[in-house]
């Protein structure tokens, strides 16, 4: 039994407590401290991945009291998500070292880093919680930290967006907690492993409790991960927050909730119960509407960050679609899109943030010729845009390929058409930005971006990962396949 996964949490929470104190010594300490801690957590999650690779998935019982009860489950889904969360979290943190001074009040910087680490800890906890109540606690930590990351930026827009997010997110948490209560009522269990055995028994005598609980979970997590039409909070929150907050919201937070609900559905309720209420059909329908509505609304936006936020609604619907297909390649597509979209959407938000940092431009129309003033940023933005559209050679193509393959495997070829048609819609709003930036009339001389180095470095590494997973997806595919098998078992 390895202590590594718990150490990740301990390190994050301890550092989140200490960072504001370090700020009393020197103002720049919290940023660098957070960087050191996140790097350490990434190393720990790599070590944990290697350990699981050698010894296989395992359960960890805090305090060593033995199960069942409070449990931490480390399977391949956990490993995949830990690597994604800590890698993307680290890169966004590197970027924020350069960017945040321009977006936040200097006094709130230590608090920002502290909240950011709590956020990462909660995300790491969510994907490894092995019992429902720890899961709920991590959900609440995640909710509060996520709202705080939006509302910490000065200005009334962020405050409004944060408050709206908090109210809707709390409705979601309430529904999830009620669902946990309904499950506990008929099974007397909270541990997920024990529940997977107890639920079929309880289902025969109390089917309504199970049905209602499952619906509450789907709607509750649907609010938190912006399943259409429960997405109303997302555009405001993701568009108004500081660039690194937008990146972590769009890139990681909403996806972790999908992983959690997928784990609940497939591992404790089972795919049969999932199909008994017509949940897969409903989710497939909603995600199809979400894909089109998100794309059409994105086309209508004039603000670049709002456009990216609406694009997130469309992209998150792909992930829901992959899981609702409930076949191995569909789930692989969903998991791949969680990783790939996590990297590319963070990258796009960071690139948009860099444009705003340097020029203050938010309107898409005004981006004409920006490629000559910020060539590096716009090249990175273009990589992200092409990847979103799903051009072969970029990582977005791989996940869409698997999603389409999943639709065929599930015997629902109509969704292949949905994926193809929506790729065209993506092209309609992403490509004009790229074309305008590089082919618009040239203003003044060609200059390099002159961004602070942390911002440039973070974006370049993300672009490198995007290309790596687009051209040589082998190792990622192997990991995702193991995770998909673990999720369905």
């Amino acid at each position: 039994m390895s202590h590594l996964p718990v150490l990740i949490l301990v390190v994050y929470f301890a550092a989140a407590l200490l960072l504001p104190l370090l700020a009393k010594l020197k103002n720049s300490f919290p940023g660098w401290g957070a960087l050191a801690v996140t790097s350490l957590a990434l190393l720990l999650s790599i070590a944990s991945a290697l350990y699981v690779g050698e010894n296989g998935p395992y359960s960890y019982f805090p305090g060593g009291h033995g199960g069942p009860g409070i449990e931490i489950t480390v399977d391949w889904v956990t490993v995949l998500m830990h690597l994604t969360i800590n890698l993307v979290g680290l890169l966004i943190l590197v970027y924020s070292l350069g960017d945040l001074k321009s977006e936040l009040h200097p006094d709130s910087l230590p608090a920002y880093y502290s909240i950011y680490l709590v956020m990462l800890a909660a995300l790491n906890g969510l994907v490894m919680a092995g019992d429902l109540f720890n899961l709920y606690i991590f959900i609440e930590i995640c909710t509060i930290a996520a709202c705080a990351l939006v509302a910490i930026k000065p200005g009334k827009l962020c405050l409004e967006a944060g408050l709206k997010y908090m109210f809707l997110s709390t409705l979601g948490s309430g529904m999830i907690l009620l669902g946990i209560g309904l499950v506990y009522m008929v099974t007397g269990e909270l541990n997920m492993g024990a529940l997977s055995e107890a639920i079929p028994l309880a289902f025969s005598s109390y089917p309504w409790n199970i049905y209602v609980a499952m619906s509450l979970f789907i709607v509750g997590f649907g609010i938190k991960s912006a399943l259409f039409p429960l997405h109303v909070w997302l555009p405001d929150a993701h568009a108004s927050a500081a660039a690194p907050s937008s990146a972590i919201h769009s890139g990681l937070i909403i996806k972790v909730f999908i992983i959690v609900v997928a784990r609940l559905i497939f591992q404790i309720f089972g795919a049969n119960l999932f199909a008994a209420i017509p949940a897969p059909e409903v989710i497939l329908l909603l995600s199809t509407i979400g894909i089109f509505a998100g794309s059409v609304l994105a086309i209508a936006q004039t603000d670049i960050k709002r456009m990216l936020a609406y694009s997130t609604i469309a992209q998150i619907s792909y992930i829901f679609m992959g899981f609702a297909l409930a076949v191995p390649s569909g789930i692989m597509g969903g998991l791949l899109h969680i990783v790939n979209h996590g990297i590319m959407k963070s990258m796009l938000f960071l690139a948009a943030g860099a444009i705003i940092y340097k020029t203050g431009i938010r309107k898409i129309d005004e981006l004409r010729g920006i490629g000559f003033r910020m060539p590096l940023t716009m090249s990175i933005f273009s990589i992200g845009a092409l990847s979103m559209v799903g051009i072969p050679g970029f990582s977005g193509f791989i996940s869409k390929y698997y999603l389409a393959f999943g639709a065929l495997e599930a015997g629902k070829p109509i969704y292949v058409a949905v994926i193809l048609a929506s790729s065209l819609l993506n092209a309609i709003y992403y490509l004009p930005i790229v074309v305008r930036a590089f082919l618009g009339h040239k203003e003044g001389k060609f200059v390099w971006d002159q961004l602070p180095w942390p911002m440039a470095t973070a974006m370049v590494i993300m672009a490198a990962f995007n290309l790596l997973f687009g051209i040589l997806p082998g190792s990622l595919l192997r990991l995702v396949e193991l995770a998909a098998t673990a999720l369905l078992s």
Partner: protein
Amino acid sequence: MFDKLLANLHFLAAMLLFIIGFYTMLTDSNLIKKVIGLNIMDTGIFLFFISLGYSGGPAGGEANPLPSALMYGGLAAAVSLTAFGLAMIVRLYKYYGTIDADEIMSKRGEAE
């Protein structure tokens, strides 16, 4: 039928509280009332959980401590969310001079 309802009155009360709170949070335009709705909703869930722990007969008997213990976690979350929400509302009041969501929307419309 009526006996069954009477025996499960606590569940009915919990569900009513949940629905009242849920409805208030969704529909009331007063932000403070939304926070109150949040608390009513959570109270409904707490009542539901704690009544699950009751296992004795009419004279009392013993109770399962686990659901009550779990609700300490729920309470902590509800208190933090209430405090955080109220703090945000105070800040919003400084910007707009009102705590009514509709008025804030119309003031925002005028400004733009």
